[in-house]
């Protein structure tokens, strides 16, 4: 074919560097985003349906699973180990584990995201957006279920509902920002070096023990505290404990989590651009 010039502008241009979409209006972007959210919610519903396929109790397991987990921890901490101290109570531990679990689930599965779910969706032509939205939103939904169970246990354990429990959701939102920032980069690294998927589980396990989930910040030796302070969970978990168990949410807690979320959002934005570009070339690696 002759190289004829064309002054035509196209809505989508695909080059070796990826896709370039024609700029659309802000209103269109908002409309598209709201459609994506609705789609993601229904995809989560269907994913959960798949998870309970063939089970007699069906969707009830979504509540039973965290409830049984909480009950097991309650039994271990209250009757078996009989640990003493305000920072080692069952409630203290349960708050930490509910928050941590979502972080651990996402970060552990992130290295294989592009080479498994991401690749499948790209290969089918569905795109990376919906794959990542589904990946993260499902864990967000499960966190919401666990959070509900946590509040139920707190009520049973004698805690009263308080306005600061809403701040617990703010902390959760900040934690999710941080978790997604870490997950995106783990997904990127995992595509290049699949061995990261083997290492990250051990790293997350170690990270848990270096976070104030089982003990408070005050138990850390003074010389180690500056190092410990580098761990974002040194700000997330104390803030959650304070909001849910202590009925207070200080300015320091707010600020530290807000800064963490802001930085995380920047890292997510940059990471998302890199991941989208890598997502385009994923057949080179998978």
């Amino acid at each position, binding site marked *: *074919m*002759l190289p*004829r*010039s*064309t*002054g*035509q502008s*196209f*809505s*989508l*241009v*695909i*080059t*070796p560097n*990826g*896709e370039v979409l024609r700029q659309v209006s802000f209103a269109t972007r908002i409309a598209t985003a709201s*459609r994506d959210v*609705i*789609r993601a919610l*229904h*995809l989560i519903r*269907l994913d959960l*349906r*798949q998870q309970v*396929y*063939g089970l007699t109790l069906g969707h009830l397991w979504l509540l039973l699973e965290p409830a049984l987990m909480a009950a097991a921890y309650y039994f271990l901490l209250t009757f078996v180990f009989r640990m003493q101290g305000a920072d080692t109570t069952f409630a203290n531990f349960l708050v930490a584990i509910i928050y941590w679990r979502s972080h651990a689930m996402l970060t552990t599965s992130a290295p294989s995201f592009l080479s498994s779910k991401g690749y499948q*969706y*790209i*290969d*089918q*032509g*569905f*795109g990376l957006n*919906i794959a990542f939205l589904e990946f993260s939103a499902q864990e967000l939904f499960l966190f919401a279920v666990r959070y509900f169970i946590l509040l139920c246990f707190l009520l049973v354990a004698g805690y009263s509902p308080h306005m600061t429990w809403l701040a617990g959701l703010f902390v959760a939102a900040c934690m999710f920002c941080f978790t997604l920032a870490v997950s995106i980069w783990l997904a990127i690294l995992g595509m*290049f*070096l*699949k061995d990261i998927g083997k290492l990250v589980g051990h790293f997350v396990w170690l990270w848990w023990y270096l976070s104030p989930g089982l003990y408070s910040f005050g138990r850390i030796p003074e010389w180690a505290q500056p190092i410990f302070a580098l761990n974002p969970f040194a700000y997330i978990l104390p803030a959650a404990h304070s909001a849910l168990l202590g009925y207070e949410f200080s300015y320091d807690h707010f600020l530290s989590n807000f800064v963490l979320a802001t930085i995380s959002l920047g890292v997510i934005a940059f990471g998302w651009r890199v991941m989208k570009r890598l997502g*385009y*070339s*994923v*057949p*080179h*690696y*998978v």
Partner: protein
Amino acid sequence: MISLSEYAGGHRNDEFQFLESISTFECESALFSVNTQEEMEKTLLSILEDVAHGRLLDAASKLTLVSGLARIASLVERIGILKGAESIASELNVVSMILADRANFIWSLGHPEDARSVARSRFSTFESLKSADESSAGLSINVTSGERTQLRHDFPGGQQPSVFVHYLVRRNFDGVSEPFVAIRWVHDGANEEVIVRFRPSSVVLGQCIEVPVASDDTFIHISIGRRGGKDIVFVNGLPAFFRDATSPSPTGVTFDVIGAHASPIKVEIPLFIVDYEQEVSFFTDEDVKLWFRLVLEALSIEGQLDRLSRWLYAFAGLDAPLSYDLYRLALSSNLNESLAYRDFLTDSLIEMLPNELRRQALSDLDGKEPNAALLVEDVAVTIAANPSLHASFGRLIGGRHQKITLLDGISFRAYAGDIVGIIGKNGAGKTTFLKTLVSAMPLSNGRICVDGRPILLRPGAGMQGDLTGRENILKTGLYMGFLPSELNELMDEIIEFSELEGHIDRPFRYYSDGMRARLIFSLATAIPRDILLLDELLSAGDMGFQRKAMKRLDDFIARAKLVFVVQHTFDFVLSRCTKCLLLDHGRPVYFGDPVIATELYKESL
């Protein structure tokens, strides 16, 4: 002898006058003119006289003359006098029959012994896999299915300015139940390429140029050769194929018979082969150019775009610059209404313009062409042979990865209303190309511009075994970008069409293959999209469902702006596609007329 062009030089005041003048053209050396039936008969009698005196070469020359003039007379009648002539196809048949009748006459009433002796002497120089029956003047062999017999003729060595081989073949085989008969180029004694295939009602040249000939038991005169870096074929004395010589250059030709019957049958093909070292044609180079332009003009006026397209393809190697008027005439035929030929014709016509006019043509076109819905420019895809080892230890310490090229050099445009078929063997790159259109396969070169986001529909896309049929409809629809409310509106219709009313709430994993295919097809064709990419979706279900599916697909395609279909059956490509892309090992072999594309594909099988 004066050439047509010399004759035309002083007369071409206007096109019609010129065309009419040709009908009264007289050839000085041939002693006759053919503007009346009586004169035609006189010509033929003189041919018989030549035969009676053993002047076979002269007879052959005159035969081609008769054939050529008859065609021109016929064309002139069509254009200049417009007497409601029938299609060119039928006229070519008439011409062929005239020639074939006379050739038959030569063969049977002339000097059959001469013909036999010439044939025997020629056969002795051929490398024959089976010996020809000495009692026959032609080829007489026993063939079974798949068994091949070749009569090979090597071109003389050295730089020959012109080398031609002439076949006079009586087509007493039908090419379907009888053996497959073809004439092929031979490259260095090994690689072969079909020049001519014989069919029941035509011969096919250069794999895709179909020349209708009489369907009865008649002779065809085919001259094959090379001159000035061009591969040239004459059929019944008329130029039919002028292409730039393929590389590597052919070193000879073979007459090739492949058995088609399961049981051995005896095949007798009356065949007369002459390796003149020069072409035998009434046409000089200038005549061929003139002939080319004449037919181009005729086809443009009549708007026969399929024939125009093949005409341009057949004469792509002819150095015959067009006038701007002729270019405009060809473009002004109902080109915009014919999606199949628009791109190919426009590009071919521009390529045939002199350089100084080409720029003008391009600037004239700028902004006047309809907007393309899809632009594919020099697309290539190269990936690691084993992508999963991309980050292996060996790679990390500096090892190199072997790469494979899945697609290379694909360029074309498609417009709103196009239905583009993609054909090729397994592994040709059909699905890979569709994936590039949805960014599922990264380009290593080129670009793809799309007006709208395409959607790729493949068997099994997004379906999950643990979900019911109904849930799978919902989930796959969500992946495609639809909302549940939109999908619910289509749900009943999808279920009804897939004939799965009694099974739709069962898990997908318990569906049979046919049920799965029906559900996927029903879903895929229920959702309206602008740009659709259908990958092997048409093989769903049993025959009854396929008939129903084909009708639904028509409605579906009618709502879409642009459709790409990967399909192995030619029926769909030939009956519904406006264009066709033929791929082979990731490279585009042809883009354009579905008939040509499928012919080329069949040839490669």
